[in-house]
């Protein structure tokens, strides 16, 4: 968000450089002369003659960014909860809560009510306002919920006998026999999740996106190579981590 200080600096810089952007439209703002007290001494500041940017050396070939800039907004907490719910197939909040809690020994989820204040939901009854920005506790809540969502989705989609198109998140098949994925195979599957969660193809993301998530996936696979009966196996842990990385991503929460 632009601030007063930022604008002051902008104004000062503009004044100093005596520059202007591309030629202004034809309209000229009216000149108004403030009333002058006969006894007062008035000094007019020096005139600044606008210079078209095209006359400044180097500018004729330099690209100009005229796109309006806006800081990212934090997704409202209600929208966030509804988005979580939509990621898990659109159950009712209480039904989803039951699914996420699952076996209590998992310790994956408590209740939605336990997380509301950390997520920034306002409480009008006691005049607690909506949280306008993130904080560490909110991110802890994002992690708590993200882990629950992704692990349950893995259990439902990758462990259960659910048809691909009926899965909540992981609408792709894994290679038979647990064969390691090639980069291309990973990329195709990652794109499914990336589109689902962040809303656009992974190919349009910054270049580092896919390799980072690939490394994340592979790290989890390696750590779970000798997983016990209850723990996720390598691919399951890998995809749970990828899912978690997307659901906790700044691009998910900021828009």
């Amino acid at each position, binding site marked *: 968000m632009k601030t007063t200080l930022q604008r002051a600096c902008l104004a000062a810089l503009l004044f100093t450089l005596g520059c*202007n952007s591309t030629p202004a439209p034809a309209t000229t703002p009216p000149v108004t002369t403030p009333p002058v007290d006969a006894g007062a001494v008035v000094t007019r500041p020096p005139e600044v003659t606008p210079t078209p940017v095209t006359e400044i050396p180097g500018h004729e070939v330099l690209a100009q*960014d005229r796109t309006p800039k806006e*800081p990212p907004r934090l997704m409202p907490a209600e929208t966030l909860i509804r988005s979580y719910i939509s990621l898990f197939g659109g159950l009712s909040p209480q039904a989803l809560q039951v699914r996420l809690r699952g076996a209590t020994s998992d310790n994956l989820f408590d209740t939605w009510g336990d997380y509301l204040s950390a997520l920034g939901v306002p409480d009008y009854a006691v005049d*607690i306002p909506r949280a306008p*920005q*993130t904080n*560490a506790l909110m991110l802890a809540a994002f992690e708590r919920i993200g882990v629950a969502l992704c692990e349950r989705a893995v259990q439902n989609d990758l462990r259960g006998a659910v048809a691909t198109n009926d899965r909540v998140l992981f609408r792709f098949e894994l290679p038979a026999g647990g064969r390691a994925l090639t980069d291309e195979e990973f990329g195709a599957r990652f794109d499914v999740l990336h589109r689902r969660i962040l809303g656009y193809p992974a190919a349009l993301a910054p270049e580092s996106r896919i390799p980072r998530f690939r490394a*994340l996936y592979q790290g989890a696979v390696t750590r779970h190579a000798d997983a016990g009966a209850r723990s996720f196996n390598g691919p399951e842990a890998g995809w749970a981590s990828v899912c978690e*990385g997307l659901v906790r991503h700044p691009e998910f929460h900021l828009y």
Partner: protein
Amino acid sequence: MDTRRRTFLKVLGGAAGAGIASQPLFRAFADPPVASDEFFVLIHASGGWDVTLSLDPRNERRGIIEPGSTDTIDTAPIRLWRDAPLDADSSTFEILRPSGSSLRFGPAIGALAEMPDRLTVINGLAMNTVSHPDGTFFAATGRHLAGGKPVAASIDTMLANEFGRESLLPTVSVGYPSTYVGDDLDARVSPLRVSSVDTLSKMLNRGNVNTTAADRLAVTAMLTEEARDLAARSWYRDEIEGFGLQLQALPRMLSPDVQSIFNATSLAAAQPTFFPTPAKRFQARAGVNCAFAVEAMKRNLVRCVSFSSASHDTHSNNYRSQPLIQQELFDTIAALVRALDAAPHPTRMGRRLADHTHIMVVSDFCRTPQINLTLGRDHYPNGSALVISPKFVGNTSFGRADDDQMLPANAGTFADGARAVAPPDLLATFVSAFGVNPRKYLRDGDVIRSLLRA
């Protein structure tokens, strides 16, 4: 500034290349982090307290002042209430004058009456408002609301920004009017706003059956890199950078050591004095928050704990409970002081937490000197505050409200002339006690040097 000028400057920014990164030229650079051994507890006595019963005692009918009496107050649970004659049918209270102290208190002061040497009382605060939200944020930020929104950082955010950037939990705000507004605020000090401390433990719970802490750490590390890269690509970096910094704090937050301080059972075991049986009728939550504050500070996990107390907003015959609400709060604060006396400082050998912990208690405003038609008191644009700090001169009172109408009276000559003391002055004095230039955060307010120890 019109769009054309904005466009040009971005071009210039890019052209300068090496000299100026492609980011807003105006971005304020954060001050280097300051290590600190000081801790802060900020308490908002919500709803507007009746200071005639405690910090600015009035037991005479004078002007428009109607003192609290046995007609309007349940005096039985007020330990320090001693009847004083008022009229034929009712009694008011005797004013307390602690031994060896020039301070005067009403009976609701509770156990704080036993430690006048630690207390700095400010009376006659010019609140200039009787609106709850406005008074609340004026007390916490030094600025009135504008358009219903706060326009400055709250005192806990100021302190966290100065001294808490390296803390795991710079500010934990339990219902306190914390605001994160301003140009020079580090993203790490965005207040952790919670409804209650003991529910936080659920946020920090993690299962380890399917995936492990190592898996989650890997995700966090990756996301931290993503946030850094996104910020580098961004025109407005603050939100994303803040996200990244908060991600970095996450692993520490999830350590067992931290989780235990957010658990009511653990807190009760560690600080039983804050969990009396029977529980306090009104201020039980204040006890939990104070227990949390002590335990978190002992572990050097938090820099600032701020919370709001139970409401003092007694407009009708619930005014009968007003002194008990205050007594419970002040008893809790006294217990906090004693707990801090007993707790070792986490980083300063041989020092107590009390030597480096600073407590400030304020309210929205106070209550009318008159009793209203429903036997309560309404809002009034006067205020009082309490500071308990080694940096402040104890056994001291500053400012006053007049004798007949309890309006803020001239407290001295400030930079803008003789006037009453106001919340910006209190906040300016408080931050300057720690070497912070108040003008960094506060548009208004003078430093009252006489309140500070040399």
